Structures are given as C-alpha cells and as structure tokens.
C-alpha cells in the first residue's frame, strides 16, 4: 500500500469525509401520492431528484470520484401506500429490485449515450406498437440516464474549477462514452454502482469484476499506458470507495450491504478465467483489510495450490472471506435448475451466497426459509410411526406440507420498478420492460435453516426412541417442552451418546442427506408465480437465530434460546474431530439438488495462519473441500470477539481450538486465566 492509499484509508476510517454530507428531509412520497404518480414515474423522478440534490465533492489526492453527500435516499411511497400495495401483493423486503447483480460490463463498454440511442430507437417501435407500458419504461430509463449524465457533467465542471485536471478529463469521457482505459472503467463502475444505491436498489452485487474489467487493464499494460504499480494503486482506491458510503445503507447491520465481488472461475465457453486482475484483487484486499467488497472465489478441485495460498492469505486477515464456491458442483447444479450452460458458467453470488447470473437473472434467491428443526419437531408431536422408516416418511410428508404453505403465501409476488437498474440488465431495453417485471431467470430460492440440528435431532429420535426404546415420542416431546429440566441423564444421552453431523459418521450424515433430499423433492417440479422454479438451499441467513427462537429445546440436546448453527455447519454443541471430518460430513449430501447457496462454515484459529507452512495447510484444506465435492465454503480466522463470546457461552463454542504453545487445546477447557492469555495474544496478532 503506498502512502496515498494509506492516507485515504486512514481518512476513511476516521470518517474524515463525513463533513461533506448533509441531511435532506424528502417529501417526495407525499408529493407523488398527491399527484397519483405511477410506480415507473416515481422511480424515474426519485432518482432524478436524488442525483440533482447531490453536490460534487472531491477528496484530496482522489483519482476516482463520487461521494455520497446527501445522507437520505428519498422514499417514493407513503407508508399508507406501501401498506395498500402490500395488501394486494407480496413485496419482498423493501419491495424494490435488490439482491441481484447487473451486467455492468456492457454499459461500461458502450457508454450511456449509446444506451440512450438504443432506448430512443426502441421508443419509436413502442410508439408505433402503441405499447403503453413500454413507452413508460423507456421514458423512465431515459430520464435516469439523463440524470446520471447531468450529475457527471456537474462533477466534471467542479473538477475543472478545482483544477483536478485528471478527473475532469476522465469525466469528460465516462459515463457518456465507453471506457477506453482501466482508470476510466473503474470510474464508470463507481458511478453506476453509486447510482443504483441512489435509485433505491440495494444488495447490488459487483459480479465478475475480474472478467469485465480485465480487458481494460490488459490493453493498458500491453500498450504501456499504465504500470502495474499504478494499476494496483487505482484498484486499491476503487476498493476503498466501496467502504466510503456503506454506513449510509441503514436498516441492516454495518457490513451487510451485499457488495459482493466474484473472482475466478471459467468463461462462458468454459475456459479458465483466472487472470492477472484476479490475483491483484486478492492482493489488494489483503492490504486494505476492509470489509468491502466481499470477495468470492470460484474454484475447482484442480485450482492450483498457489492460488488457494494467495486466497488463504486473505482469510488470514480475519474478514471472513474469500468465500469459495466449487464450479464442478455449482455449474451442473444450475444447469439442472434450468439455467443455460453458458449462463451457469457465468454465475456470481447475491448479497450473501445465493448463486445468481449477472445481467439476466432476476431471481429472488432468499424469498423464504424453511426451519428444518421445526419440521422434525412437528413430526415428533404428530407422528404415530411404529418404525423409524415410517417416521421419516412422515418427515417427508411434512416437508411437502410446509412447501405447500410457503408456496401459497407467495403466489402473488410483485416488485417495484428500477428503470436505471434495468438499463444495466440484459435485454431490458429490447423487450421494453422493467427488470422488476422479470428477466430471463425468475427463480425463487428457499433457505434450509438448521440442517445439523435437525439431522442430529432425527438421530436422537432414531436411537433413543426407535432403537433403544428408551422413551416414546410423546415423552421426548414432553422433555423438550420442559427444556430437559429434571432429566440430566436424558439430556446427556441426547448430547453425547447420539452421533452428530460433523464427525464423518455415516449413519447421522445419511439423515442429513435424507432431509435435504426431502427438501429438494418438496420443491421439485413446482413453478413460482413469476414463471420460474423454486430452488432449495443450504443457507440460513439470519434465520438461524429467528427460527431457533421459535422453537423450544430440540431432541439433539439444544436447549431453549440457543441458536442453530449458521448456514451449513455442525451444531454448536458438538465436539468434532477436526475440519476434515466436518468437510466429509457435509459433502456426502446431494448438494447439486440444494444449490441455492449456503456455505459450509469452518472456523480456524488465526494462529494457524502465522507461518507459511500454516497457510499452505489451510489452502490444502480448501483443496480437500473441493475434491470432496463441497459446493461452497466460508473459512473464518477466529478472532478475539469470538473468543470473548466463547468465554461467556462456552457451551456454544465447543469446537473452538486454540493454539496455546506448541500444542492446541479446546478453548473452553482452558482455565480463565489461560483463556485471557490467548485472547490477549489474539489481540496482539490481529494488529500486526
């Protein structure tokens, strides 16, 4: 990191740009309501107003401009209007276009003026066809482009006035015209991403950045227009910019902003897509140590260890990424879901880990969530099964019943328009329809929460009720309702005598597989109300807390109030032999059938990363994961906060291994003073 970037980074962390911001009390919603404006017009006027309110601002030494100066993005509907809308249809989350990844590359290449021409030409046809909706959409899209061009020109003039010649030159070119250099391409992308936030979209994935930006870098390097050092410098500044306004994205946890970036993988025709920019991105993130952009890396079992070692260096920073996905599993899975092979090869991720296709996908990959433990709980209370096989049949039936229920509740899903977002999506101008009306792919994704808790619970039922006949289902349900009070022996049996997922035990792992198969079967063949399919997945999002709170204790010995494991991971109260066994337990499932997304999550103490040798070993673990056929992996270097949490809630951190000297121990088994010592060391190592 050179001094310029270090200074910018320090300034960012010290919020030194916050004085540029101002509060705006919008009353657009009331205005729109009184004028009875249609959604399409509101979207266009909303963006135009927001961008008009923005004032060009520059930071010292900045080479890529655009900063949010207006804190609030205007509401386009009054609360009463939203309530009325929601009474007529289901609007997911805020109801807008979100959790998607546009095709930034095509517009960066063409420029907004070219897009404008396309729209104008299409408008002629829409007028000739008397296509009312098409005309409204195209007019709004045009309005959005004009607003973007207007702000860019004000930025350019301000740059001229401020003597910022380089920026002025840059902004004379983009976003009006297609980018011709790496620098221009980055500035263009910054403007587009910034604009989508201003239109009210959120969780906008950056997509396959290393693919659509690399041609500019390569051309610059080949022509000798840029040195590699300068390219690093620009890339670092560009990545910094994702952290500049992210605190304004209120309503979610800081950091939960969906600014995901996908690296590596293969091209649309199946060639290896890893390039110089891929590794530059990993390296720059290692240096910046900031939470945005959130890096994903596509791998295969054949990915060179050197690439995985570079990625592991990033894991070492303790940011919780890169998140890995395995092309050998994900691409065939997407094809099975009905995606065309070329599109499947182009996959990226939504805000968290749901697999989506940039540009042509308008999936709602997080539309609902299934609580697997609740299904087991329900069947435990209702089943009259005499054998465990019959019990599992009841589980499968219940799974279908839950799917029926969810499907019925989501039979009328609508979305508010995003005309500028539509300009950046594939084919929307040509069809003259807003992307909110659908795109090539309109699938729904359903998370499966708490798989391990459910599988472990099933195993407890199988062993204690059906094999050992230690108690009946009714008695087990009573014990669960009573939070196992007064039955410590039973609680101990459920916790320690029954095998758990995560230890490569075939019997319990098979139950995990059966649950996921039932989950996939329950959705197979169903069409959603937007013409797509339903995709089952292994993610949990925040549901691992919510769904856990809906339940009392569970038959696996989890007590009331304790969470499920996040995503796809062993239960928190299970002691596992190590990461190899966890990987094996969680790769036996038919993952291609439940490939909505949702990573296996592994925690590795950050001391493991200290030496080159450790980096290589963690990288090999990633390779092992891919070889075993895992679909998605999130590795965490465990940090101080987790250790502090582990001190407070040791029962939830049984697997946390720490290196104490030339040896490792279970953190919770250490006396407090030693725990404190480890924490102190972690504090030191984190700063280094």
């Amino acid at each position, binding site marked *: 990191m050179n001094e310029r970037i270090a200074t910018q980074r320090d300034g960012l962390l010290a919020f030194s740009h916050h004085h540029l911001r101002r509060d705006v009390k919008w009353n657009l919603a009331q205005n729109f309501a009184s004028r009875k404006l249609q959604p399409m017009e509101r979207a266009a006027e909303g963006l135009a107003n927001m961008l008009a309110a923005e004032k060009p601002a520059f930071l010292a030494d900045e080479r890529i401009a655009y900063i949010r100066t207006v804190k609030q993005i205007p509401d386009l509907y009054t609360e009463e209007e939203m309530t009325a809308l929601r009474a007529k249809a289901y609007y997911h989350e805020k109801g807008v276009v979100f959790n998607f990844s546009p095709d930034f590359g095509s517009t960066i290449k063409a420029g907004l003026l070219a897009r404008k021409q396309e729209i104008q030409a299409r408008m002629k046809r829409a007028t000739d066809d008397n296509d009312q909706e098409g005309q409204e959409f195209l007019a709004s899209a045009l309005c959005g482009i004009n607003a973007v061009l207007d702000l860019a020109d004000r930025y350019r003039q301000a740059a001229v006035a401020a003597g910022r010649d380089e920026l002025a030159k840059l902004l004379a070119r983009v976003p009006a015209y297609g980018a011709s250099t790496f620098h221009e391409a980055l500035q263009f992308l910054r403007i587009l991403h910034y604009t989508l936030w201003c239109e009210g979209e959120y969780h906008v994935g950056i997509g396959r950045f290393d693919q659509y930006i690399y041609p500019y870098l390569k051309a610059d390097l080949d022509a000798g227009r840029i040195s590699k050092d300068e390219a690093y410098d620009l890339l670092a500044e560009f990545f910094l910019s994702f952290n500049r306004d992210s605190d304004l994205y209120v309503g979610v946890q800081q950091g939960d902003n969906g600014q995901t970036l996908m690296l590596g993988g293969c091209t649309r025709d199946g060639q290896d897509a890893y390039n110089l920019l891929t590794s530059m991105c990993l390296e720059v993130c290692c240096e910046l140590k900031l939470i945005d952009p959130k890096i994903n890396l596509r791998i295969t079992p054949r990915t060179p260890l050197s690439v995985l070692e570079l990625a592991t260096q990033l894991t070492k920073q303790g940011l919780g990424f890169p998140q890995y996905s395995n092309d050998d599993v994900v691409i065939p899975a997407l094809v099975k879901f009905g995606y065309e092979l070329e599109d499947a090869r182009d996959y990226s991720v939504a805000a968290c880990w749901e697999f989506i296709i940039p540009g042509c996908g308008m999936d709602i990959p997080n539309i609902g969530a299934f609580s697997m433990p609740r299904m087991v709980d329900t069947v435990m209370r209702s089943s009259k099964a005499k054998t465990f096989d019959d019990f599992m049949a009841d589980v499968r039936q219940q799974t279908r019943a839950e799917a029926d229920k969810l499907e019925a509740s989501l039979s009328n899903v609508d979305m508010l328009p995003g005309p500028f977002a539509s300009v950046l999506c594939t084919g929307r101008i040509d069809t003259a329809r807003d992307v909110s009306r659908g795109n090539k792919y309109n699938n729904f994704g359903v998370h499966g929460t708490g798989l391990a808790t459910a599988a472990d619970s099933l195993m407890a039922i199988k062993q204690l009720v059906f094999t050992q006949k230690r108690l009946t289902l009714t008695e087990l349900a009573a014990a669960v309702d009573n939070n*196992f009070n007064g039955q410590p*022996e039973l609680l*101990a049996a459920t916790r320690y005598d029954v095998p758990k997922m995560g230890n490569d035990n075939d019997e319990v792992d098979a139950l995990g597989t059966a649950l996921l198969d039932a989950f996939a079967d329950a959705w197979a063949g169903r069409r959603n109300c937007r013409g797509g399919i339903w995709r089952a997945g292994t993610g949990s999002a925040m549901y691992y807390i919510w769904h856990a709170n809906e339940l009392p204790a569970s038959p696996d010995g989890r007590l009331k109030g304790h969470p499920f494991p996040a995503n796809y991971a062993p239960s928190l109260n299970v002691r596992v032999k190590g990461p190899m066994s966890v990987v094996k337990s969680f790769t036996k499932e038919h993952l291609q059938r439940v490939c909505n997304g949702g990573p296996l999550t592994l925690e590795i103490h950050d001391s*493991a990363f200290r030496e080159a040798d450790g980096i290589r*070993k963690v990288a090999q673990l990633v390779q092992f994961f891919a070889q075993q056929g895992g679909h998605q992996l999130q590795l965490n270097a465990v940090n101080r906060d987790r250790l502090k949490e582990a001190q407070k809630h040791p029962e939830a951190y049984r697997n946390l291994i720490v290196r104490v000297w030339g040896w490792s121990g279970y953190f919770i088994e250490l006396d407090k003073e030693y725990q404190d010592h480890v924490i102190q060391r972690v504090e030191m190592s984190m700063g280094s």
Partner: protein
Amino acid sequence: MSRGLIFEVREFCLHDGPGIRTTVFFKGCPLRCPWCHNPEGLSFAPQLLIAPQSCVHCGACKRVCPRQPGEPCRACGACSKVCPQGCRRLCGVWREPAELAAELLRDRDFFLNNGGGISFSGGEPLAQAEFLLELCPLLKPVHLAMETSGYAPLATYQRVVEHIDLVFQDLKHADPTEHRRLTGVDNAPILRNLAWLKESGHAFIARIPLIPGVTDSEDNQRRCADLLSGPSGMLRVELLPYHLGAGSKYAMAGLKYQPGFDEHAAVQPRPDLFQDRGLKCVVM
C-alpha cells in the same frame, strides 16, 4: 494382538509434520517434565478429566457412580455418560491396531496425494512400542511422523524408527544430572538412541524446549548443539520457547501445576550456537 491406550485422535494438527496430518496421542509417559503441557497424557491408565466450570450441580454424576464411600475412582466413565454439561470426559480408550488404522485411513488418499500423513504423539508413543509396531505397517504407505522423548531401549527405538518417515526427537537437557532432576529419568538411553539416529541417516528434526532458567542456558544450548552436530539425516533444530499456558489442563486432570521456575521470565534462544556448527535452526 496388543492394544494401545489412546487419549485423542485429532485432525489438522499443524505442527506435527509436513502437510495436513492427523495426530494420535498415546497415553502414558515415563518422564515427568515439570513443563509438560499434556498432563492427561502422563498416566498409563484411563482417567477421568473434570472441567467443573460449567457444572450445574444436577447430581447425575453422583447418582450413577458405582463407587463405595472411600473407594478411589476407577475411571469407569459412567459419570461422563450422564453429565449433560460435558464436564466429565473419560480420557484414554483402549484401541486395537486394525480398528484404529481403519479410522485413520479414511483420509488415506488425501494424505498420499497432498504430502500429509499421520503423526504419533503423546504421552510417549515408544512406551507402547508393541502396539505401535503393529499399527505402523497397517498405515503404510502413508507418511508417518513421531514425536518422542527418545526414552526407550535402543532395540525398541530402532525397531519403531524403521517404520517412521520423520522423527521429532526431543532433547530436553544435555546434562545427565540435570536431566534426571528435571524429568525423573536418566538421559543416557536418549543420547544413545540419538547417536544411533544420527548414524542411521534417518530423517529427523530435533526439538529443544527452552524453559526459562531451566534449559535455556547458553551452556545447555551449546551442549545440545554439540550433541546434534556431525553427519546425520537431521533436517533442522527447532527451539521451542516456553509459552504461558502449559499448566492449563492440570486442574482438569486432578493435578496441580507446579513448574518450579519463573513462567514469566524471558527465554534466551541461541540459534547462533547451532548455526555456528552448520546446523539449520529455527526458533518456533
């Protein structure tokens, strides 16, 4: 067929040899080094480990205990099965070679393809040599490593090392009197085995724990360096400075940690003394 008393099988041990490894911990050790960090590996019998921090006093362990008043704990493990908090753990399980090998070999292909393997640690693996000698052939051709004090009859040492691809040979103190005072045993068998190991050309790494005021003197490090110098298959010397934390598991094993030295004192690693003799040396 012999049985082995094993107190843990742990995956992904990072400092026990090349690549990703699974380490088997042998229970029981003839030495009593005051800085030992694996006190549950000292005794040659199964024992109960108790971590009382999360005890909720439910009484399940007392209800199930078959012991008569005044009778010592036989480590039957009954209480460990009924404690809902997991406060009690039976440490040490008798394993048969074939059954243990089957468990370890579940990762065989990965070990073979990625330069990893299986390591033996403890306790002292050589103290259960017959078991180890039955186990090793079952694990081949997976790479095997062994961490050992080297305290064993020469013939035993030779027979086992023949099966081991990489030996981590401890050298705690060069002086026989000091060694006996510190560890309770003579270092003559260790030094004799070390001499053979060097002569054999077998691959090994020497590990020297640097205990403040105990083994980290310049004199000891110099004498260790002398012992290790000369032709051999030694890859490097690893100096392991003492870190706070060695005593953390004693209470759980019903023992008291009494190191008898100042835990907080800085150690004085002298890699130069080894390097001067042409030995590769790293401070861990």
